[in-house]
């Protein structure tokens, strides 16, 4: 692998969608060009070194009017772990009643992030 790499990415911090050109040396972002504001530089650095994503999905639920309960990660998860986390949620079955914010899958995959209910769901 080359020691110096150039990466092109689209900033998502605002609707401007600046095209950023970042230079990386040994896995460290050394320069960011094309950004219109400092948020662009921070975005490029985070995205290239440690990209994080929120996860939203559904889990099955018993005893409610609906079959599925929508859930969301309490905070962001490493991008590379998102599919694995979604897979893990297929194992889970919640039980009504549930309140918005209730922890449905604590500390998912040991990543230190809880998966919580995104809405109330009454028991029927």
């Amino acid at each position: 692998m080359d020691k110096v790499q150039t990466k092109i990415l689209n900033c998502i911090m605002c609707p401007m969608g600046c095209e950023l050109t970042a230079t990386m040396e040994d896995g460290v972002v050394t320069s960011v060009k094309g950004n219109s504001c400092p948020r662009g530089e921070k975005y490029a650095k985070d995205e290239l070194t440690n990209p994080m994503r929120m996860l939203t999905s559904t889990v099955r639920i018993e005893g409610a009017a609906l079959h599925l309960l929508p859930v969301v990660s309490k905070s962001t998860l490493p991008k590379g772990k998102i599919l694995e986390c979604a897979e893990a949620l297929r194992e889970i079955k919640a039980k009504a009643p549930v309140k918005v914010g209730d922890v449905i899958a604590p500390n998912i995959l040991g990543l230190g992030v809880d998966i919580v209910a995104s809405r109330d769901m009454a028991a029927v």
Partner: protein
Amino acid sequence: MKTKADVVIIGGGITGTATLSWLSRYDLSCVLIEREPDIAMGTTKANSAVLHAGFDAPTGSMKAKMNVRGNTLYHEIADEYGLDIKWTGSLVCAEDADGEATLSELLARGEANGVPSLSIISGDAAREKEPNLSDKITAALHAPTAGICWPFGMAIAFAESAVVNGAEIERECEATGIKIEGGKVAAVETTKGTIETKFVIDAAGVCADTVAKMAGDDSFSIAPRKGEYILFDKTAQGSMVSSVVFPVPTKTSKGILVCATTHGNTFIGPNAQETDDRSNLSTTPQGMDEIIAGAKKLVPNLPLGASITEFAGLRAASSTGDFILGESSVTEGLILAAGIQSPGLTSAPAIAEMLTEIIVSKTGAKKKTEYKKFIPAGKKFNEMSDDERAAMIKNDPRHGRIICRCETVTEGEIVDAIHRPCGATTVDGVKRRTRAGMGRCQGGFCGPRVIEILSRELKKPIPEIRKDGIDSYMYYDKKYGDGGDK
């Protein structure tokens, strides 16, 4: 399924179902087999839905006779069967001297065929009837006895009336062979077993030649001709037409028409394309362009932004150019109803009447002493007054839940359509019976809900619910881990 019957009808289109209904008045055991999951899924579901007056076909042809008689019969039976028919009349529009000469020919032919009340009117008189017609139209042939209809509804009513009177309809049952003994029909072999019978009625539409060949008759062939259509939203009606408007016909077809439907929609089409593939129901960009260009000659300002769906149908054109009706000259007991293209829909009751007479004369069957009068599905919720609606919901609260918002179809109506004789088993089957999903959102809203109701009422899991055809499964189970039951 029965293993023995007096008559087996192959094909559940308008011809097969009408014939079954006519036969069910007699003391005969009848089975209709249909290879698809529902009746009315071939030519019957994709055509112009016009009840023709009868001036097109050559005088003396089967088409002419059956058309005029069929038209008369529909006028008589519409109420009994609760058929959706509007006698709107039709116009054939000419825009030059050649065209006007053709109108005169059509008028003379129509009169010779026995079509009542034909007249040629001026372009202005035509525009008085249909204000959106092109200024270029100079004259039109007006046929007041023509009408528009709801073809699936008619086939379903025929089928239901027959089932109530003891006939059997076996769907997803394909004929695989016909057993002949001593030059006579002995049995029909199907994917669901063999039915012994002396009479087979071949009403197999685009496959009528294949079925005839099974019984040793290869005296004719069918060359399917595809026609494409564009259907428009009800909101477009003001800029379209309220009846049936044809151009001057060509040798092969009545041309691309602009036409109203019985529920306030309008459509344009069809074109005419030969195809070798008997299941080719694809629409094409060229076809769309062709029918748009054709229809613009009649109605120049087409509301193209209001199209809600496109579809194609196959005409079962025969090698003789005419309907082939009656007993095969090769095989005794093989009764043909082949080459049923336009005006087949109009002719269906006349064909049913004729084929029934043949069967009756050959079997000596007597009319049933207790023929059950058919009770049609009844007025749609959509067409009711508020008082009628209130009463209907009081009677069954499921009518208080509207499933299809575009066409105002209730849960109760959908449940009823599933449980009626020869009821719906697919999403499109529900659509053809209730209009749920026929509207401008094309099932975007009601689709998932209809699937859920089908699943519940048929006691089948959702992945087993189909859209229309045999393998048209719609949704799949999600895969869950061990923690789950699904």
